[in-house]
């Protein structure tokens, strides 16, 4: 019962890791600048924001939902925290808390529409995607907010660890991954997230309040987007109304590449970290090779379709 085989991660978890190693090997062969601690520090820093958004996205996709608004909600959070600090002279922690509150509220709003009015997550978040984008543009007047308190940059500051420069934001991202992994795997609440994605009706009949679980998932996702906003502001040193546009789809890509099924109920959040790294490695590697950014978008598109196709085909094989 507790055999060695049970303890091995299934291929679904190993697959993304193998893909990551292969991608690294490929880019190492193409560019001699790729394999350096400095470059890996850069990739981590570039992945930080999308990585945290993707934690929230993973939660939602595990329940067989999807959040198209993630990047736009993050952008709104970033604008709110920087504008509040710049316009009202709020201290960094207070302004950041306000930004977190706004993104969490957006998550709550998504969750209420999905659970109470039973609208499909795809449609709900397509709506909030546009709402969040419009509010961000209107509130900021499409202007970047650069006059921010020093405290907002702290998460972007770095320390050196064995030759690599690591920012506190990256540490925070890794910490959040470990926390999410633990909660999803070891607690009843985490297992209920999987159960809701697996078979919502059966889950409801066991007495689990499935709507409450779903609502919490959307709220926590909103909180993740707020944290990502903090990291984004710290990394760029500004509130950017046009932030989040690549992250919006990259986050979904990361989740799918990480082996989480779009049909819900299957996946591991650490896979999402690997997925985010795959996206980051591709973007970084292609840049080093001098490939234009349009081709990078092309490659990410192909990657998503490949990942979803693999998911679909492997499910068929399992049945």
């Amino acid at each position: 019962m507790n055999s060695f085989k049970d303890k091995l991660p299934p291929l679904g978890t190993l697959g993304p890791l193998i893909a990551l190693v292969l991608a690294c090997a490929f880019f190492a062969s193409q560019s001699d600048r790729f394999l350096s601690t400095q470059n890996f520090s850069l990739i981590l820093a570039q992945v930080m924001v999308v990585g945290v958004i993707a934690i929230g996205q993973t939660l939602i996709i595990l329940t067989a939902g999807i959040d198209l608004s993630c990047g736009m909600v993050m952008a709104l959070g970033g604008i709110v925290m920087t504008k509040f600090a710049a316009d009202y002279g709020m201290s960094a922690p207070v302004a950041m808390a306000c930004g977190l509150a706004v993104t969490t509220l957006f998550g709550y709003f998504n969750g209420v529409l999905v659970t109470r009015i039973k609208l499909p997550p795809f449609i709900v978040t397509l709506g909030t995607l546009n709402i969040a984008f419009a509010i961000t543009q209107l509130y900021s007047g499409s202007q970047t907010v650069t006059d921010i308190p020093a405290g907002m940059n702290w998460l972007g500051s770095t320390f050196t660890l064995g030759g690599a420069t690591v920012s506190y934001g990256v540490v925070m991202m890794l910490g959040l991954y470990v926390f999410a992994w633990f909660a999803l795997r070891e607690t009843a609440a985490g297992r209920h997230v999987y159960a809701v994605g697996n078979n919502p009706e059966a889950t409801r009949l066991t007495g689990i309040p499935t709507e409450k679980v779903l609502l919490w998932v959307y709220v926590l996702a909103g909180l993740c987007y707020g944290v990502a906003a903090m990291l984004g502001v710290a990394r760029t040193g500004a509130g950017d109304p046009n932030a989040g546009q690549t992250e919006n789809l990259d986050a979904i890509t990361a989740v799918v590449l990480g082996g989480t099924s779009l049909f819900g109920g299957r996946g591991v959040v650490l896979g999402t970290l690997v997925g985010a790294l795959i996206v980051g490695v591709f973007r970084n590697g292609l840049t080093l090779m001098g490939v234009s950014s349009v081709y990078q978008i092309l490659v990410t598109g192909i990657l998503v379709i490949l990942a979803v196709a693999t998911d679909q085909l492997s499910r068929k094989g399992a049945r």
Partner: protein
Amino acid sequence: MSGTQHNIVMQAKGLVKRYGQVTALDGADFELRAGEILAVIGDNGAGKSSLIKCLSGATVPDEGVISLDGTPIYFKSPIDARRAGIETVYQDLAVAPAMSIAENLFLGREIRRPGFAGNVLRMLDKKRMLQESIERMNDLKVGIRSMTQAVETLSGGQRQCVAVSRAAAFAQHVVIMDEPTAALGVKEGNMVLELIRRVRDKGLPVVLISHNMPHVFEIADRIHVARLGKRAAVLNPKNISMSDTVAVMTGAMKPEDIPAECLA
């Protein structure tokens, strides 16, 4: 059977349920005795499923009283019924396919670790749940080797066995089975019937809703026939033929024409 004092576990008197103009239940009675398998049969629209929904908490009757061990009960949801010790198994394999058997058995009733890990970190006691799953499945002689395998790796019959075992493990009073073999093949269906019998033999009374007459006659101790929103009769499968049972069900044989030895 006559003359013995029967211990009644669950009883319903004069249940009425209307849906707009349609009267689904028109004063239906119901009686489940300790340690028996009571089959509930009836044509479509006879009030069979409305009756079961009232008993399992899925609907609230407009009139009438349901009592459990002599105490009147009022269920507002299946969760109320579950709390009262009544578990229901549904036809459509109500399990979470990607989760393990042990996880499915304990879904919604997870056990946490003792001490700091459980109270503060809210960690699950996976070892204990696994151990108890093994014991419970062994108890019911369900021959599934690994409790850590995903339910989707099992056959339909094995999955239904998981659902039945879960119900049996947690039901304190009654297990209700709504067409548990309808989605299964012959061999798989027999496997589940065998398990239902073992559940009864462990002392839990079972209410079995089924369209499958051979299955009903194979394992039922008594047969409750629903007709026109009422209970037409309760039959003894040992003394009545399958065709006469169908005649009672369809109204071709009047309840007052049923020979006394056929009643139960």
